[in-house]
C-alpha cells in the first residue's frame, strides 16, 4: 500500500496495539485530536481512553508516569509534541529512564518508546525545528532511531517497540507527508542498528538520516551529473550505529561527508568522524567533512539557509572528491 510517513507510523502503532494489549499511547492531544500531526488519528476511537490517553501539558509528567507504567509492566509510547519540548522531560529520560536497568543490576527496566517529531523546514522557527539527537546518543542506556521513509518508519517503530531497551524515535516532520512509498501490509520489522545503502558509489561516502537523507540523495544525483559517484548511507538507527556498514563504505571510497540538521559542534557527525578516523585512518584520502546546521539557534526566516540542503552538500561532495 502507498503511505506517507504519518500513515506508516500510525499503521505501526495500530498493528502493535492490536497485537499487544500492554502497549499504551499517551501525550498531549494524542487522543480525540489524533496528535498535532495526526499521527495517532483513529487510535482513540479503536482502543479507548485507557490505551490512548490525553495527558496534561507536562513532558516531565508524561515521561515520568510512563516510566512508572513501564515498571508495572505496560509498554507506554509517549508522544512529545515537538522534540523542542522534550527538555522538561530530559531529567526523567537521562536520570531515570536511561539508568533504570543499570542501577538495578538488570532487575528493573522501563521499556518505552518516546516518539517526537524533529527537524526544520516547516516554518516552525526556533522552538518547532530542533534536532536534539546527539543529546540522547550521549546518554548510556538509550537507543536513538530516525527513519527517512514510510517503509522504514513502520518497520523501525515495530522493532523499537519490541526492543527491550528504551528508544527515542525521532520522526522527521518535514517529510511527514512528503515522503510517500510502498509499505507492506501487516507485520514486519526493520532491525535496529542496521543502516541502508540507498545509493552505491565509488568516490565519496555520504552519511545522512531523516529528512536530510533526501537532500543527500539529491546532492549525490547532482554530483553524479558532474562525474562524482557517491555512496549514500541512510543510518536509520543512530545509536547503536551500524559501524560495520559505515567503515566498509568509507574503506571503499576513502572519503566521507556527514550531513545533519543539528548544529555542527558536538553533533552526531563529530562522533561519526571520530569513529571513522579510528577505524579507517589509512584508507582516508581526504579530511572528513561535516555539512550541518550552524552553531546558532534554529531560525525562522532563514531556515532554508540554516538547513544543510542539497545546494550546500554538492560543493562538499565535489571538494572532497577532488581533495
Amino acid at each position, binding site marked *: 500500500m502507498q503511505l506517507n510517513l504519518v500513515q506508516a507510523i500510525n499503521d505501526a502503532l495500530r498493528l502493535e496495539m492490536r497485537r499487544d494489549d500492554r502497549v*499504551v499511547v499517551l501525550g498531549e492531544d494524542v487522543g480525540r485530536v489524533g496528535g498535532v500531526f495526526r499521527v495517532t488519528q483513529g487510535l482513540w476511537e479503536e482502543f479507548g481512553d*485507557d*490505551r490512548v490517553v490525553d*495527558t*496534561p501539558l*507536562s513532558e*516531565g*509528567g508524561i*515521561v*515520568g*508516569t*510512563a*516510566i*512508572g*507504567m*513501564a*515498571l*508495572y*509492566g*505496560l509498554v*507506554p509510547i509517549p508522544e512529545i509534541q515537538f522534540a523542542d519540548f522534550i527538555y*522538561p522531560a530530559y*531529567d*526523567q529520560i537521562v*536520570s*531515570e529512564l536511561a*539508568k*533504570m*536497568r*543499570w*542501577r*538495578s*543490576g*538488570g*532487575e*528493573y*527496566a522501563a521499556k518505552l518508546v518516546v516518539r517526537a517529531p524533529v527537524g526544520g523546514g516547516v516554518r516552525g522557527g526556533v522552538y518547532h525545528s530542533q534536532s536534539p539527537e546527539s543529546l540522547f546518543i550521549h546518554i*548510556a*542506556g538509550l*537507543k536513538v532511531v530516525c527513519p527517512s521513509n514510510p517503509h522504514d518508519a513502520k518497520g523501525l517503530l515495530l522493532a523499537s517497540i519490541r526492543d*527491550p*531497551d528504551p528508544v527515542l524515535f525521532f520522526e522527521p516532520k518535514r517529510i511527514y507527508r512528503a515522503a510517500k512509498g510502498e509499505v507492506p501490509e501487516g507485520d514486519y520489522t526493520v532491525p535496529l*542498528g542496521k543502516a541502508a545503502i540507498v545509493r552505491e558509489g565509488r568516490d565519496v561516502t555520504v552519511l545522512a538520516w531523516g529528512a536530510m537523507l533526501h537532500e543527500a540523495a539529491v546532492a549525490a544525483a547532482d554530483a553524479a551529473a558532474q562525474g562524482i559517484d557517491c555512496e549514500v548511507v541512510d543510518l536509520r538507527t543512530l545509536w*547503536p550505529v551500524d*559501524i560495520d556498514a559505515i567503515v566498509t563504505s568509507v574503506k571503499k571510497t576513502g572519503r566521507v561527508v556527514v550531513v545533519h540538521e543539528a548544529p555542527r559542534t558536538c553533533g552526531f557527525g563529530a562522533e561519526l568522524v571520530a569513529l571513522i578516523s579510528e577505524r579507517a585512518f589509512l584508507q582516508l584520502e581526504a579530511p572528513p567533512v561535516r555539512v550541518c546546521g550552524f552553531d546558532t539557534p534554529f531560525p525562522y526566516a532563514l531556515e532554508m539557509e540554516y538547513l544543510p540542503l542539497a545546494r550546500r552538500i554538492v560543493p562538499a561532495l565535489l571538494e572532497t572528491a577532488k581533495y
Partner: protein
Amino acid sequence: MDTLALRSPPPLGALRDDGSLDPSQCAMLSEELAVALYEHMVVARALEGRVAELNLEGAASHHAGAAGREATAVGAAAAMSDADWIFPTTREFAAALWRGMPLSAYAHHVLGTDCDAGKGRSAPGAPFWKAARVACASPLAGTQIPHAVGAAWAARMCATDAAALVFFDEEATRCGDFHAGLNFAGVTRAPVVAVCRTDSAAEARHTGRKGVAVQATAYGLRGTRVDGGDVVAVLGVVREARLRAAAGLGGTLIEAVVAPIADPAAGADPDPITRMRRHVEARGLWSDERERHLWSEVRADVEQAFAQAAAARQPTRETLFDDVYADLPWHLREQRAETSAGRY
C-alpha cells in the same frame, strides 16, 4: 473560599505519652502487628547505626540518615497490601526491610559488593527489592513521584486493585516532578498514596508556608497530616488512604511530620522507637528482658550481615558494561575488551 485562611490541619496522632492508644485513631492494631512494627523500627535503627560507624571507619560511603523517620517508613509500608508498589527515597530502607529485604542484601548494597542486587553501582541508601515490588530509587528529589503515579495508573488500567505508595522529602515539594506527579494523580485518579516527610524543625523555620497537605486540594487529592513519629497513626492514615485509592476515590497526599535524629546512637526525646516501646509495654507485650534480647539479637544479625558482605568481592571491572542495555552493543563490547586487555 479564602485561600489565605487555608491551614494544614494539626497532625493526627494515635500514641499517647503513657503508651495507650487514642481509641478514635486506632482499633486495628493486633498484638502481633504492634510487636512487628516495633521490632522493624529497632532493626532499621541498629542497621543505620552500623552503617554510620562504617562510614566513620571509611569502609562505606555517605548514607542519607533515616533515624527518627523509621515510624513513617515502617508504618506506611505496613499499611499497604503485598501487591502494592512502594517507591522509596534513599531514606526508606526500613520500608524495604518491612517488605522482606534481608539485612544481608542491604549490607552488600552498602559495601558495594558483587552480591549487591544493584551490582555495587549506586551509593548506599537506595535499596530495592524486586521480589516485593520495592522500586529502585535515585537520590534525586521527587523524580519517583510520577513513577508511582504511573504504576498506580497502570494498575488501574489493568483492572487490578493494586496501589502505589511513594515517599519523598518536603524539599521535593518545591520541584517540578512533585507538581507533575500530583497533577497526573488528580487527573487520572490513580490509586496512589503520597507520603511527604516534613522535618518538624524546618517546618518551624518556614513560618510563611502553610504546610504541604493543603496543596492536595488544588490537585483534587485528599490531604492529611499525621505525626510521623507515631507509627500507629501513620499506619492508620495510610491504610485509610490505601482503601480510598483502591475504591476508586483517588489519591491522598499525606504529610508526615517527623523529627530527624542526628546521631542514631544517641537517640532523642521524643524518639519514635521509644514511643512505640511504651505502647507494647503498656499492652503487656514487652519487657526489659525482651528488649535486651531483641537488641542483642539484632546487633548480632547486623554484625553478621556486614561481616559476610565485607568478605565478599568487589564487582569485576567487566560487570560495569552489563545492564546498560539488555544486550551488549558493539561499542560496549569494544570498550570492555579494551579495558580487559589493559588498554586505555
